[in-house]
């Protein structure tokens, strides 16, 4: 159905002057997920040209980080992808830990995995909610998603003191141990989560309107996905079995048994991207169950000073964030501040294929394709 009309030629008929309708969708548009703009040219309702415009939320994150100590930019990483502050923290901590060579205690590693997987649940569940909202459902799935998200955010708050800007990870471990009873509450939540997922799947996964709206829309071929550097669920939806949790096995992911859902790469459309995330949530629950069963007692942070001067080195720390590969690239020059600090934002890099996916579709498709990419403008613009 979708034939990507990369070079669209306007149908010129004799004696009939036609022109395209140009629309600037955003930065204030209900479904651009923040201050994002798409300059769209429409032929009727068909998108023939699309130009993503961003930078409205640029906060100079990388340059700021080069002018403050390593620890001080930790709270700023929260604000990159403000849905997933825990995983952002982890990626940055991983990079910095390579500089200073510190042993992360066992309990901290377990808690890191627990936090990261809870974050993945938060991200995927809200993404699906927003995605269906973009499809036009009046916020019902979004509200169910938010209910579950609230429960997880409550846990985050109890552990770290903040719901979204957790700022919980530290080089060599975590800032503080979780309070008493926290693990039990988490176990309870994790036990209940599959029931919610069942209900969610019953609501969404067989709905004919959702099926026909999402299938065959925004196809992303395996080749394009790899060439564009797309990562995360989007890449797996295009048929590449690539998950850093398996590939890198950072942290202690090699201790857990879990599966990575991916497609055969025939379609790689919005439906695949949506379903891969639904399936990944089940796997996250499996990881959480194992981690919560095995977590030992012990220290929470290794020996590391607050302000340190690493030896000159170049390091790259990356994790499988909920949105894709989130990497931090640091160059240390022997002072307390990094010489170069660079974020590899999955949102931005996944966004680069937007135009290729949208052309030839309807304007309504462009909206859901953007929704299925799963961007957060805090991370795109930095």
């Amino acid at each position, binding site marked *: 159905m979708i034939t990507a009309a990369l070079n669209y030629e306007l149908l010129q008929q004799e004696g009939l002057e036609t022109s395209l309708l140009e629309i600037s969708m955003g930065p204030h548009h209900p479904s651009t997920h923040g201050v994002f703009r798409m300059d769209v040219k429409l032929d009727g309702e068909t998108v023939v040209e699309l130009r993503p415009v961003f930078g409205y939320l640029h906060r100079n994150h990388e340059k700021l980080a080069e002018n403050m100590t390593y620890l001080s930019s930790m709270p700023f990483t929260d604000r990159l992808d403000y849905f997933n502050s825990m995983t952002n923290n982890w990626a940055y901590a991983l990079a910095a830990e390579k500089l200073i060579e510190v042993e992360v205690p066992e309990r901290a590693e377990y808690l890191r995995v627990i936090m990261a997987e809870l974050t993945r649940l938060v991200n995927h569940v809200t993404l699906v909610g927003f995605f269906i909202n973009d499809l036009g459902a009046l916020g019902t799935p979004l509200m169910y998603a938010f209910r579950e998200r609230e429960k997880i955010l409550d846990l985050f708050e109890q552990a770290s003191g903040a719901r979204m800007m957790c700022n919980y990870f530290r080089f060599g471990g975590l800032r503080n141990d979780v309070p008493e009873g926290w693990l039990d509450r988490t176990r309870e939540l994790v036990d209940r989560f599959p029931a919610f997922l069942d209900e969610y799947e019953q609501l969404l996964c067989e709905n004919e309107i959702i099926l026909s709206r999402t299938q065959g829309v925004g196809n992303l071929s395996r080749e394009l996905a790899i060439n564009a550097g797309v990562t995360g669920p989007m890449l797996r939806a295009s048929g590449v079995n690539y998950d850093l949790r398996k590939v890198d096995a950072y942290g202690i992911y090699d201790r857990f048994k879990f599966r990575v859902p991916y497609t055969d790469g025939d379609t790689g459309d919005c439906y695949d991207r949506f379903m891969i995330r639904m399936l990944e949530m089940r796997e996250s629950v499996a990881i959480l169950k194992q981690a919560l069963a095995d977590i030992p007692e012990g220290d929470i942070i290794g020996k590391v000073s607050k302000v340190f001067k690493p030896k000159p080195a170049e390091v790259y720390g990356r994790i499988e964030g909920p949105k894709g590969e989130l990497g931090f690239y640091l160059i240390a020059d022997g002072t307390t501040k990094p010489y170069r600090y660079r974020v590899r934002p999955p949102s931005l890099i996944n966004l680069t294929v937007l135009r290729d996916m949208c052309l030839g579709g309807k304007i309504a*498709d462009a909206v859901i394709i953007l929704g299925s990419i799963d961007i957060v403008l805090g991370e795109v613009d930095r």
Partner: protein
Amino acid sequence: MSFELIKDILLATVPLLVIFPSLFAFTTWMERKALARIQNRIGPNKTGIPCTRIGLFGLGQPAADGIKMIFKEDIVPRGADKLFHLLAPILALIPAMLILCFLPLEFPWGKFISGKVQAFMLDSAVIFFFAISGLATLAIFMAGWASRNKYSLLGGMRAVAQMVSYEIPLLLSAVVVVMMVGSLNAKEIADAQTGFNWFVFTPWGLAAFVIFFIAALAETNRSPFDLPEAESEIIAGYFTEYSGFKFALFFLGEYIAMFAISGLAVTLFLGAGDGPFLTSAPWLSVVWFIAKIFGLIAVMIWLRGTLPRLRVDQLMAFAWKFLLPLSIFNILLAGLTHFALDARVAATSDAILYSIHAPHTHSGEANHEHPKPVAGQKEAVMGALHYTDKNWMGAMKWFSKAALKGHAQSRSILGWGFGIWAMSLIVLYVMAKGLDNVSRSTAKPREYLYAE
């Protein structure tokens, strides 16, 4: 101008002008509350009596909304067509209010004041209904065009395309009922359904009702057909640039149109004001009517809380490739089954009636003794009498009583009835399935791979 005329006009119109806008207020509350509960929220619960802490389940919300709307600034974009920008909401409201007049609502004050109780006893009420409800399209187009906003324009274009397309299945599904009753008069259609002879209980009526309801959703821009005001795509569609009281008028017009079209669905398929206890309290008919309207609106709200939106091309394909052929086929089927069933039952009922009269009326000779009473004869005769009164439900009740007692002819009637009923349902389903297979994309759930 005589006093009588003025009184009649007032009697006919004032209730509509009072009742439906207040029902609108109630419906907005109901919708907000129901949607909130569907989404596991609480909904308005604090807005009750002002200056007190009495919440009244948020029933004051519509009033608060109304006050807010009135006092909001009315913004007209620069470069907009000011006249049309003003006229569009009014034009949206007027046809919606006008078509209420064609509903066979009989208000109970015929008792107190003599006079007409139905606004328009038009012979061609149903066709008028469709004619005037089509005017809403113009209003929406007007709004979309006058706002000088690309989103509004897109919304307006979508609205026109959608409403023009869905008017056809809407009309064609109504044709079935008109065909059966033999009249376009709403009152006659309502009368034909008294005693639970609702057309929705017939297979073609059921199919027509479903088609009508779906098309009505599209006509009133309700989810999942709310493309003209698709928030996630084109902001608010044709009323992107509307604020304040003009927006409220659009809102009102939309809801009144919802009432009107549900009212027509109730009139055509759900027996209008028919319901239980009507013999003892005829005034209940208004209550039943409005209750049925609310039933339909509740379903609309429920759908709105559940379904996402269709895409433009799918919307069009659904109207032209699915609903339209199905409704045409339904007309044919209705004619056919009705003819077959009617002929059969008429012949058998005649025979039943004849069998009790025959000995006495036939050429005076041989048969002077009473005919042997067949088991269930009496019930069968009652059924036949009900049938000649066109009371299908009553006839079927009596026939089935007779059949239980072993009356052969009644059994055959029932067999025919149910046979044709089931046959038509199956045929309709097969037809729908076939159309579906032709028109739908190959959307179905998929299997996914897992890497260990």
